[in-house]
């Protein structure tokens, strides 16, 4: 029997002896494992604060409240948007017609589009970097 098989048997015996509350002193190697198992059953120190349940349950409820608040704010903004569109709609249509009639200058449009894409990509990378940086600071 190799060392691992022997150890496996000793651990099984120690576990059984602990479960059945058998007397110690028959095999010191089993007793050493019993001591280890007793140490592993000890409650952990430190512990969570006594008010942990109340505190976290309160936080979760507040988050629920925030969710409803966010929804109401979104609905309000949507209503305001629709209202504004109805109010300025006719004049906006006139303005659009006027803009269409204006002749655009002969710009190198493909370069303008490329420049806009580049700015967009740089902005996105910057945002991603800021988020990663912020997460690593919080973690």
């Amino acid at each position, binding site marked *: 029997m190799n*060392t691992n098989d022997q150890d496996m048997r000793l651990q099984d015996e120690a576990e059984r002896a602990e479960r059945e509350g058998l007397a110690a002193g028959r095999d010191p190697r089993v*007793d050493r494992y*019993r001591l280890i198992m007793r*140490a592993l059953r000890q409650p952990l120190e430190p512990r*969570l604060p006594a008010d942990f*349940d109340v505190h976290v349950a309160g936080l979760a*409820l507040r988050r629920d409240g925030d969710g409803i608040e966010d929804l109401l704010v979104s609905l309000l903004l949507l209503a305001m948007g629709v209202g504004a569109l109805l109010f300025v709609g006719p004049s906006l249509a006139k303005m659009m017609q006027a803009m269409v009639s204006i002749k655009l200058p002969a710009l190198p449009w493909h370069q303008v589009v490329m420049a806009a894409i580049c700015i967009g990509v740089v902005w996105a990378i910057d945002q991603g970097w800021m988020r990663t940086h912020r997460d690593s600071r919080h973690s």
Partner: protein
Amino acid sequence: MSDDQELVTEVLARTPGAFERLIARHKALVWHVVYRMVKHPEDARELSQDVFLRVHQRLHQYRFESSLATWIGRVAFSVASRHLQKKKLPLAESASDEEGDVLDDVGDGFDLEAACADRETVDHLNAAIEALPPLQRTLVTLYHLDEMGIAEIGTITGLPDGTVKNYLFRARQRLRQRLETRLGAIA
């Protein structure tokens, strides 16, 4: 209706005090998983809070396929693992890092009850438990302190049963080695 189902239904119905009861019932398990994984008390407290906020947010996804404790334990393990990954800390060690065979003979004189009462031996063992890699620390705690079965631990950690058993065996073997080093030193 089982206890778990009743409690989950109450939490989802926003019954006052229900979520607080859920936390009270499962906070020990969450603390054991998170604290054993990250070891740092303040980080562990914050992460335990995150675990319960996540549980609250995702409870509607719980399908009663495992016990609520196992499901919550899984959330805790995933939050703690992600924290270790972010900090680039290893979860377990490679097999080559494990120590060799233990001292086989430290003498036959070993009094279990006297050793249990010996503060220094107990402190030495606690330090040895703390020194185990995070995954092994967590597994031995779930098995011995929370009295979870191998299959439940496997569900929480996502490890096959055989791997859980092997980690448990190696962890206890290493603790015996540490204990015997101490016993050898004081003999």
